């Protein structure tokens, strides 16, 4: 079944109030074109789940600055002073998780489970007593699975069955989010016919993907950020 959609149609499916996972760690893997269309369409009261908040005026920071986001679930927003300021002003609710815990909460949802037992942060202030479980003689923190209505994913390559391949450090959260969200929307600049890829090279099987948007070009968003180039 062909999963190709136009950019406009794919994003129009997302209602205000939705919970949306967004792939990417910094720039690599951030689906800028899907995000920019969501800015254009203007859905509001969104909950976003992303490793970081991108950098000011860039990626999901545009959605946050535009007032479309009520809540951000993330690990580290140190590269985005604008969002830190909005958080400090109480204009957005930000929930932090250790990075590997966020990844694993998403993967746990993606594997159809409901939570997992860990010792990460068990003795730190991030653990509340209500999340501590005594179980068969040991003490654990229970981390619950994190689901979402939608996931927005950037793939380096895809076919119209929804098989996805990522590149470089742009893999990061994307395969996990593709498993965890109820509706998975993918952008790619390189859409191929099924059969083009070696079956062993596919990172995300098409079963997890609902819509594939073929991009005509990668905008400047995807380029090199000068301030991350070493002098």
């Amino acid at each position, binding site marked *: 079944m062909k999963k190709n959609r136009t950019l406009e149609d794919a994003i129009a499916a997302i209602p205000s109030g939705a919970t949306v996972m967004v792939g990417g760690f910094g720039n690599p893997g951030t689906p800028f074109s899907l995000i920019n269309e969501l800015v254009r369409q203007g859905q509001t009261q969104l909950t976003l789940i992303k490793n970081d908040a991108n950098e000011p005026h860039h990626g999901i920071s545009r959605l946050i600055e535009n007032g479309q986001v009520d809540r951000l679930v993330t690990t580290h927003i140190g590269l985005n002073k604008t969002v830190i300021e909005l958080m400090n002003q109480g204009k957005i609710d930000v929930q932090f998780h250790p990075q*590997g815990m966020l990844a694993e909460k998403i993967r746990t949802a993606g594997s159809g489970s409901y939570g997992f037992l860990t010792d990460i942060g068990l003795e730190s202030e991030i653990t509340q007593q209500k999340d501590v479980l005594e179980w068969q003689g040991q003490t654990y923190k229970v981390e619950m699975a994190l689901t979402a209505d939608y996931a927005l994913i950037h793939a380096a390559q895809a076919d119209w069955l929804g098989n996805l391949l990522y590149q470089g450090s742009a893999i990061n959260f994307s395969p996990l989010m593709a498993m965890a969200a109820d509706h998975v929307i993918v952008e790619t600049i390189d859409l191929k016919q099924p059969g083009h890829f070696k079956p062993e090279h596919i990172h995300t099987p098409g079963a997890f993907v609902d819509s594939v948007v073929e991009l005509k070009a990668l905008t400047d968003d995807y380029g090199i950020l000068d301030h991350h180039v070493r002098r």
Partner: protein
Amino acid sequence: MSVVERILTRAVLEITQGSIVNLGIGLPTQVLHYLPDDFDAQIHSENGILGAWKQSAPENMDPFLIDSAGAYVSLREGASLFDSAVSFAIIRRARLDLTMIGAFEVDAQGNLANWKIPGKFSPGIGGAMELAQKTKRLVVLTTHTDKQGRPKILEHCRLPLTAKACTDRIISDLAVIDVTPEGLMVREKLVDISNDELQDKTEAKLMFTAEE
């Protein structure tokens, strides 16, 4: 040599041949550039890289390949790329030989605080908690005192902890100090400083090896 250069020059000696090493955000990421080009170590970056290497020239830079601090990196031969769940599986399964990490505070028990200054700085935890809690060997890189000259090596951390009793060694701009069951043991001095002067800049009680 600047304070930073002194820390980094010493830090690079911690990396042994053939080891798997994570370099945390801040001072540690810069250690990479002090490694000889042919050095046999695999740099792990928690955003999904094993085998990250020094930044390429601008014309070869890959916009889809950064380290966890956002800086563009290259890959060594034999590098692998994977998702964030696998990346942290490597960390939590203690397959890292060494992590170097920054600190706001570190103390005599090896407790580390490096993620939050309540009311002042709370950009999130990132991967620090898992790196600190699970790496086989954790080396803290830090200036010996803060910008106001106050000690960062304390008797007991006052800020929220990243992890308890996780630090094996502290490398400051003044000394190399090991966390031992008996307390902090000065192993090397990196500048010409007396024991008393070093103790003055350190809140925690220091021990000195017999020969000094």
